[in-house]
């Protein structure tokens, strides 16, 4: 398992922001003689067989105030948010930046009334910025713990974001298992991956090494016009008696995925994304409207050797 590109390829912020901002208790825990790991036993066994030694369960947190309409980073009221710096600047995880998407949806009859309202889709860079900030800060703290443990890498990274104590606070929690590569000196900063166990082993077998996790969230607010409202809920306008594709929703869904892909692509440099996972959620915004959010996660990987054809697979049938 040699030839790893090392931590010099990590986003600068990951190495540079490894500030001393984790609690003192971390030092006490990491100095314990017993190692800990969040790996399942099969993943632990695969880890041992690959020559990786678990050092510690490492984690990072960030509690963020989450305001639906935050100041800065673009106005929600204008149909066209101003272009600016990529959201999440200052953390390892930048988003696509503001001004990436906005689209207005007038009433197809050209009428202004309570029923024939106009609508619009627009990107919410303030939400993307907050997500990048929260995720990035938690990630950086996890990396700092791994560095304290003398790790070469962090495997089986898991990240969650959940409301804490009240709806306006979201806590970002990133955990992973810090590992050392047998007979190898630690790099300046550890690499990281969402993978573990057999999936990580297969990655190495295929000639790739993990560089770091890559993740981004994109958010699009959809204010339905009268036609969309009618097609979604059967209300909100007269003169509609047909079904069919709901173009405004399709455009919002397409845009939110495109924005997440663009944000992650900007983190990859010349590397490849492996094991990409899209997660799309929808909810009603505080002021009405429909919010569509997309989170894209994966592991940034780099080829270190030519592909060796794997042994022919053996077909099996499970009897349980």
């Amino acid at each position, binding site marked *: 398992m040699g030839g790893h590109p090392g931590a010099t390829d990590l986003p600068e912020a990951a190495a540079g922001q490894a500030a001393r901002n*984790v*609690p003192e*208790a*971390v030092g*006490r*825990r990491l100095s*314990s*003689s*017993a*190692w*800990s*790991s*969040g*790996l*399942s*036993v*099969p993943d*632990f*066994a695969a880890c*041992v*067989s690959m020559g990786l030694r*678990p050092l510690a*369960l490492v*984690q990072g*947190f*960030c*509690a*963020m*105030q*989450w*305001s639906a*309409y*935050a*100041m*800065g980073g673009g106005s929600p009221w204008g149909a066209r948010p101003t272009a600016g710096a990529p959201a999440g600047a200052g953390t390892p995880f930048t988003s696509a930046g503001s001004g990436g998407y906005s689209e207005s949806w007038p009433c197809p009859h050209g009428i202004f009334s309570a029923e024939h309202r106009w609508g619009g889709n627009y990107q919410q860079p*303030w939400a993307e*910025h*907050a997500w990048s*900030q*929260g995720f990035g*800060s938690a990630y950086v*703290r996890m990396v700092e713990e791994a560095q304290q443990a003398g790790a070469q890498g962090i495997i089986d990274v898991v990240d969650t974001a959940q409301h*804490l*104590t*009240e709806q306006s*606070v979201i*806590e970002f929690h990133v*955990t992973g298992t810090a590992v050392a590569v047998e007979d190898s000196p630690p790099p300046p900063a550890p690499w990281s991956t969402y993978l573990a166990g*057999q999936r990580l*082993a297969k990655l190495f077998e295929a000639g790739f090494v993990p560089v770091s996790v890559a993740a981004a969230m994109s958010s699009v607010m959809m204010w339905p016009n009268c036609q969309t409202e009618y097609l979604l809920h059967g209300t909100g306008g007269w003169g509609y008696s047909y079904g069919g594709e709901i173009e405004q929703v399709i455009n919002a869904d397409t845009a939110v995925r495109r924005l997440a892909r663009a944000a992650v692509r900007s983190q990859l440099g010349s590397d490849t994304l492996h094991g990409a996972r899209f997660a799309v959620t929808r909810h009603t915004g505080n002021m009405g409207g429909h919010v569509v959010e997309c989170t894209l996660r994966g592991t940034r990987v780099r080829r270190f050797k030519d592909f060796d054809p*794997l*042994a*022919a*697979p*053996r*077909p*099996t*049938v*499970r009897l*349980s």
Partner: protein
Amino acid sequence: MTEAADLPEATSHRLEELEHGLFTSDLSVNEFLLVKHAGFHPLGFVMGSSIYHTGIQTRRWGKSQELTKLTEAMYNARELAMTRMEEEAQELGADGVVGVRLDVNYYEWGRDAAEFIAMGTAVKAEDGSSYRNAQGKPFTSDLSGQDFWTLMQTGHVPQGLVMGTCVFHIAHRGLAQTLGTVGQNVELPNFTQALYEARELAMTRMQDEANRLGATGIVGVRLEEKSHQWGSHTIEFLALGTAVTKGTGAATLPVPTTIISLDN
């Protein structure tokens, strides 16, 4: 209440029956097969419980702090349940208990009281070797039969189910703090620090338990968070895992084979 004599009468009768060769277990058939393959025989289903009054501790509205009395209560109650389960296993002459589950139940008849239950399957090595831990007690582990088998193949031996807990009160934000951040998406450092500290305390306590068992590592660490019946600002952070040591035997992991599953 840690003596075997404290176990209910019905327990002695049930354990006597188990000593005569009949065994009970909550292992699935696959788990049973793999536990046998690892060289162990199930002796019986064992359990321990404790109904504990968790009491009240005053907390300051605007201060994040550990609620030590509640932490101690949650810890002691689980320890009592675990100890009683270990006693049952000892009565059977077991080397360990696998598939341990730790549950907390609340009942309508007991406001502020909770039942803590530990249960698992007692096992004994078939070759007569002792697998008891450094304290001379049967090892405990929350590993399934499959995980137990896999762990043994890596050359590691379970020592005990270790845990650490911390009940923490998270401060409410004052009016000035709330107004100061209205309309902003910003980190709340006090919240971050409080939660970080609470989880670290739970994990450190879990590792202290592992150190006392002479373990070299802990696998399958889980971090659980529950508010139980205390409201959203008081949270119990529980860290759980199986402490292991490197055994004398070498790892006997089979070389992985690439397969295509023909199942749906």
